[in-house]
């Protein structure tokens, strides 16, 4: 492990250009200033606004004294602080147990101005106070007209709040437990609309559509037409509900927004967007998919990373051995050098329409990028290929449309006798001595004997199939390389005169034996980074982790300590520090690669606590926000 640090002045990229800062007017504090820590922001209302419009909003949070700036990760939005006041304290019996003893909640009044040219989509917003930088909340810029919920109570179909013409972005709040919000709108026959709700981490919203037709029992009874709660929960998927519906007849309809299980309160604002289905599909995916960076983070073991014909080239970029070796190099030839094969365009083999019979499996040569679809329940696509003794292959799987847990690609490699050689199912015996199985998007294998092998691709169930169950499977020689590098911290608030440790985990893929040099670029004046050790708690030994080496990368842990000198000047705005990594093999240095952009602030010693990681709520927010910025 190597370490270097570079002062901010030497970092020439225009990071700050992408950061919009709005300086606050001096404000009287409603309570005695308490700058004992960074701010905590709970919610925002409204959750965004229309291009070209100015509007007022409120940021709800704690430790907002002295808040003078909001920080956005992309341009087009400005915010001006209008005032800060303490929220009326709830009665003790109404206070959630988790809030007991917490600082009082404050309301920061803001005026937002969205540029007419601001790109529609979500962006991150943070508060800056003398105590440092907060975690992010998502702010949505939309093109359609906005509508602010106006009725204090419209939680019965008969009380639905009428909406103007769509497309529309409705900003509302589920203000108390069990509250639901009904809205009325009109459509023409045959119209197909798309409804979606965006909310904050504490919320889990659902959308329902109704026809206010009444029933024999009650003229106010609405007949439910459709419902969406996005029940699929998976790390890479959004849980925000989206509902598409084609209206068979013209008329007045109702849309209802509700919290899953009826949660509600002041931190449950939402944005309901109604648009013609096709229009929304064309709209923005994200303006800040990379968090405002100009590079894409490397994703290794993910079902949705893109597997292209240039995959080998991308892998080479994460190694350190320049001598290009032929693609068809044998394992013995590779063994001495750990060198990657020379990049070649990998041929794409289309498997749709290929015969289903095992005996008619298509013959391919490696490397190959297999593209196909599980067309019907029980469909199995097969290819045959030859391998030599010692050949090391990696199999990577991408699910470009439906993904886990809806589509669960199951790969099985069998030899000429039909004996199983390899699958992408990792079995372990967990602490309860139950067998636990996981499918993996990547698996590696070394052939102990030569022969002809067949790779079967299917859904692990025999119950599903269809156009959405598309896959891309890359079979290629292994390339020992630097994998993903994980850094939990989202932002850092460094206190002058104190040191803050930061932990990193580096993945070594495909028997990568080299080192990974880590460095930080863009550190502000007075801040240095040094390598450090860190005590790790002893993990209980796993009962039986199965053939772990096939399915998961090896990992190493590293620690950095960021030291802010006692005289380090406080940073008025966050500095973007770039975490960089560089593979090192046998004395050769590989390409310097960005790992993460870290927002860093130096605060005065009065701010005695530092925030080095997200608390659970913040972490949920961050994860959700990451999902949100993924394309639909």
């Amino acid at each position, binding site marked *: 492990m190597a370490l270097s640090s570079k002062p901010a002045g030497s970092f020439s990229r225009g990071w700050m250009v992408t950061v919009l800062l709005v300086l606050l007017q001096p404000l009287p504090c409603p309570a005695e200033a308490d700058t004992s820590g960074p701010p905590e922001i709970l919610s925002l209302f409204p959750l965004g606004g229309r291009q070209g419009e100015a509007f007022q909003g409120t940021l709800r949070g704690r430790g907002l004294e002295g808040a003078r700036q909001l920080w956005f990760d992309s341009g087009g939005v400005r915010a001006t602080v209008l005032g800060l006041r303490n929220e009326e304290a709830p009665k003790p019996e109404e206070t959630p147990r988790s809030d007991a003893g917490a600082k009082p909640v404050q309301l920061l009044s803001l005026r937002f101005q969205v540029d007419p040219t601001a790109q529609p989509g979500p962006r991150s917003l943070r508060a800056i106070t003398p105590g440092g930088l907060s975690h992010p909340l998502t702010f949505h810029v939309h093109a359609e007209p906005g509508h602010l919920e106006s009725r204090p109570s419209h939680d019965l179909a008969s009380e639905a709040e009428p909406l103007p013409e769509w497309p529309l972005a409705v900003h509302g709040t589920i203000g108390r*437990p069990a509250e639901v919000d009904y809205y009325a709108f009109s459509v023409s026959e045959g119209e197909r609309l798309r409804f979606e709700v965006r909310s904050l981490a504490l919320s889990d919203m659902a959308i329902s559509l109704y026809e206010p037709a009444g029933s024999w029992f009650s003229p106010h009874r609405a007949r439910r037409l459709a419902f969406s709660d996005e029940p*699929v929960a998976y790390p890479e998927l959004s849980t925000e509900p989206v509902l598409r519906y084609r209206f068979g007849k013209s008329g007045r309809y109702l849309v209802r927004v509700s919290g899953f299980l009826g949660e509600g309160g002041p931190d449950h604002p939402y944005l309901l967007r109604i648009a013609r289905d096709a229009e929304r599909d064309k709209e923005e995916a994200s303006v800040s998919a990379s968090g405002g960076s100009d590079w894409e983070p490397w994703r290794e073991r993910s079902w949705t990373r893109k597997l292209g014909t240039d995959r080998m080239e991308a892998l080479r970029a994460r190694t350190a051995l320049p001598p290009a070796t032929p693609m068809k190099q044998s394992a013995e030839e590779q063994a001495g050098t750990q060198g990657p094969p020379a990049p070649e365009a990998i041929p794409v083999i289309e498997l749709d329409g290929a015969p289903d019979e095992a005996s008619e499996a298509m013959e391919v040569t490696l490397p190959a990028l297999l593209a196909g679809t599980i067309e019907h329940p029980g469909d199995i696509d097969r290819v045959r290929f030859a391998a030599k003794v010692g050949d090391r292959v990696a199999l990577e799987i991408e699910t470009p449309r439906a993904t886990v847990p809806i589509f669960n690609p199951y790969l099985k490699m069998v030899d000429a006798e039909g004996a*199983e050689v390899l699958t992408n199912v990792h079995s372990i015996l967990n602490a309860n001595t139950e067998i*636990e199985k*996981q499918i993996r998007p990547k698996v590696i294998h070394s052939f102990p004997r030569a022969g002809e092998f067949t790779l079967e691709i299917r859904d692990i*169930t025999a119950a599903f199939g269809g156009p959405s169950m598309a896959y891309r499977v890359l079979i290629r020689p292994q390339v020992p390389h630097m994998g993903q590098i994980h850094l939990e911290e989202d932002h850092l608030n460094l206190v002058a005169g104190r040191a803050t440790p930061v932990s990193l985990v580096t993945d070594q893929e495909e028997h990568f034996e080299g080192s990974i040099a880590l460095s930080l670029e863009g550190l502000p004046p007075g801040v240095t980074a040094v390598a450090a050790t860190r005590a790790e708690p002893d993990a209980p030994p796993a009962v039986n982790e199965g053939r772990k080496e096939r399915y998961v990368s090896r990992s190493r842990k590293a620690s950095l300590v960021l030291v802010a000198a006692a005289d380090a000047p406080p940073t008025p705005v966050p500095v973007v520090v770039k975490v960089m990594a560089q593979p090192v093999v046998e004395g050769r240095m590989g390409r310097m690669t960005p790992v993460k952009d870290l927002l860093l602030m130096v605060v005065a010693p009065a701010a005695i606590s530092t925030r080095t990681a997200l608390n659970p709520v913040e972490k949920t927010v961050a994860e959700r926000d990451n999902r949100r910025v993924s394309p639909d």
Partner: protein
Amino acid sequence: MSKLVSRLPQIPMLPTLVAGFLLIPALQSTAGPEPSSSDLLSLRLAPDKTTLRWKDASQQFSVVATFAGGRETDVTSRAEFSLADPAVARLGSAGRVVAAGDGQTWLKVTFASLKAQASVVVVDSARPPPFTYEKEIGAILTRRGCNDVACHAGVKGQGGFRLSINAAHPRQDYDWIVEGGVFQVLTDERGEPIVPRVDTEAPESSLLLRKPSLEVAHGGGLRLEKGSADYQAIANWIGRGAPYHEGNGGDLPKVEGLEVFPREGLLQEGGSRQLIVTALLSDGTREDYTHRVRFESKQQEVAELDRQGLVRALNPGESNILVRGAGYEVQSRIGVVAEWIHDYPELPRANFIDDEVFAKLRKFNILPSRRSGDAEFLRRVCLDLTGRMPPAGRVREFLADPDPQKREKLIEVLLDSPEFVDYWTFRLADLFRVAVFPVGINPKWSQSYWEWIRDAVARNRPYDRVAEERISAQGYSPASRHYLPYLVLPPPENMMGEEIRVFMGRRLDCAQCHDHPYERWTQDQFWGMAAFFGSMFRLGANPESVVFDSPDGREVAADVPSPTELRVLHPRTGQEVAPTLLNGTRVAFDGPGFPRGEMAKWITSHPYFAEASVNRFWSYFFGRGIVDPVDDFRSNNPPTHPELLRRLAEDFARNGYDLRHLFRRIARSRTYQLSSAVNRTNRADRLNYSRALSRPLDAEILLDAICDVTGVPETYGNWLHKKKGRGGAPRGTRAVQLKETDIYQSTFLDTFGRPNRFSIPERDGKSNLTRALHLLVGSTYNEKLWAEGARVYELFKGGASDAEIVEELYLAAFSRFPTPSEVEELERLIAQTPSREQALRDLQWALITSREFAENH
């Protein structure tokens, strides 16, 4: 409680309906004693022929007289018997014929002016019957109840001694008696001490005799009187060395079944009838087994029997008579009437349901109640189809509507209502066990499962498709969440047992440890079915767990040692069991499918599925199944109306397993629309649908009804979001609309029987002290009476008169107008109460705590 409440009259339970019964001309009839001989139409003997083999072989005959109107009466004890050739046979006690010499003769019988005869053939009359353990000793043990499931034929036997039920496995029984040893449930090994239960040197010292005769302590009490013929027969057998058979006993034909005559019969209170049991032998012959079987009346207050099979009618009603012997069990259904109806009327019928129900009622001499009045029908059909009572305005409208088709039209309106979707989603969510359990909480799963059910009801998906999807559920599909109630898959045997119980109405559970004691289900069959679930796995961790069946039936990625993981092992043999359907068909992993999917198709296409389904749904409309309990189909729990069950099932299947079609068929039937008012003939009947039976409302329905009548909705908070702040169901949510009912706190629902759904819910509508206390002081009953928006409060505020308020409350609570006398009495009571407000509160309380309100009738 106020004076008014204490003085309120008992809310009358349909008094006008009861009073009105006798005024309905269509059902007028005359009843009286047995008809005279002038009404006698024919006479017959049962059986009409017999063959008596061996010395002293005998046959019991029954003489059946048929009177005008089709009624049959057993006149055996009053008929005159004679034999054409006394050298061939002789007469024994009433109706019994005993072999005398080889040949053929006629048994002749005379009753009143009619005669009948039966052929009697006698062979081998000089030879004593060869001895077989099965026929002689096994029969004694059966008759004496020793091999009853409650005694030595129980799962564990008794005192280490185990017999097969009804001597189904005589050789095995014989070995336990003669060789001795202690029975052990989970192994074929005999436990110590291995001491014979017979003593051939001193027969009377045999445990086999000393225990049942109480010479030594016997938990089963006195079963065999010392000196009785049976005692002596056993003693003699032991004295002869306790052989399994003697002579050519081993060559005797085997019993392959039993028949009982009559299978269905009717007796007048105080009358009697002889049952005749015939064994069907493997050589095609038949043999009188009446004296070799055990009789048992399931409703002993209705009919009782002696050991010889003579039924005595005690009280009006119906009883199943179980006949057990030679390993078999058959049944006779005996009805008892108080008096005969001489001119049974023709009954109007709406569809085949009425054909079947009324045919049996006629046979059993029971007159159905009259057709329900509009008010009674309206309330019942609304509750049964939508789980809610009709609003007062709709009651007025319906009662005033002169349209003769208004019932049919109302049924269609209800079937198409959103309330129908709410209610049947609730019913199916109960049956399918949608819940968020305190362990392994994942409300997302249960909600998607609930939504799947709701969608099926709303779109009226064929029930067989719903069932197939549930049974074969895989992946992350909503139905697959059924298999993950606790984040881990239940054991295969549990999953299988539930699917068979829910969708085939059978309980195989007993066969898990041993062959089913009552049924033909074997342990092999049980584990063969369980094996369909043996290759199921959970993939991934919460919350993205996926359910799948290991492709090819082989271990997927056996990275860790799991030698038995995918194999279901027979608990006694330790051998791997292949997925095998109940009919013995093995299903292998070949082709794109998977065995559990094949099993799902098999289940839903099996006649059991349609039968079990219609039976279950029928029970929601009538308070009991044609087979009851609804998921306990077995030979000794037969349907009350087998032909009706068959026709309902056929109709259901023929119409695409359409639940709305089934419900329409039921609701339109005259049977369903009968009044709950009793008449003289059906007062004791609870099995034949001769009247509507009152049923307590289930907790959720009752709570919703209280909210509707009082006008004050319930609020439901939940406990899942303590960290985020309390959650809850939206304002106006009805109890039947709660998606994951178990997360919403409700003292009322808990008190009144909301099931926890840990297992297939069985609701208990019986009263108890807690419920009684809740009626008196519970918040649900008392806090809704007088609040802003409460019905009676708003009427009071609006200046309604007492009579108007009484009428409105009656319409809302009972779906009927109050009678003039009720109005008069209530007005008087209200006037006498110092506080009118208090009087009206009390009135409302009295109505919603009354039986008329709390029951569906």
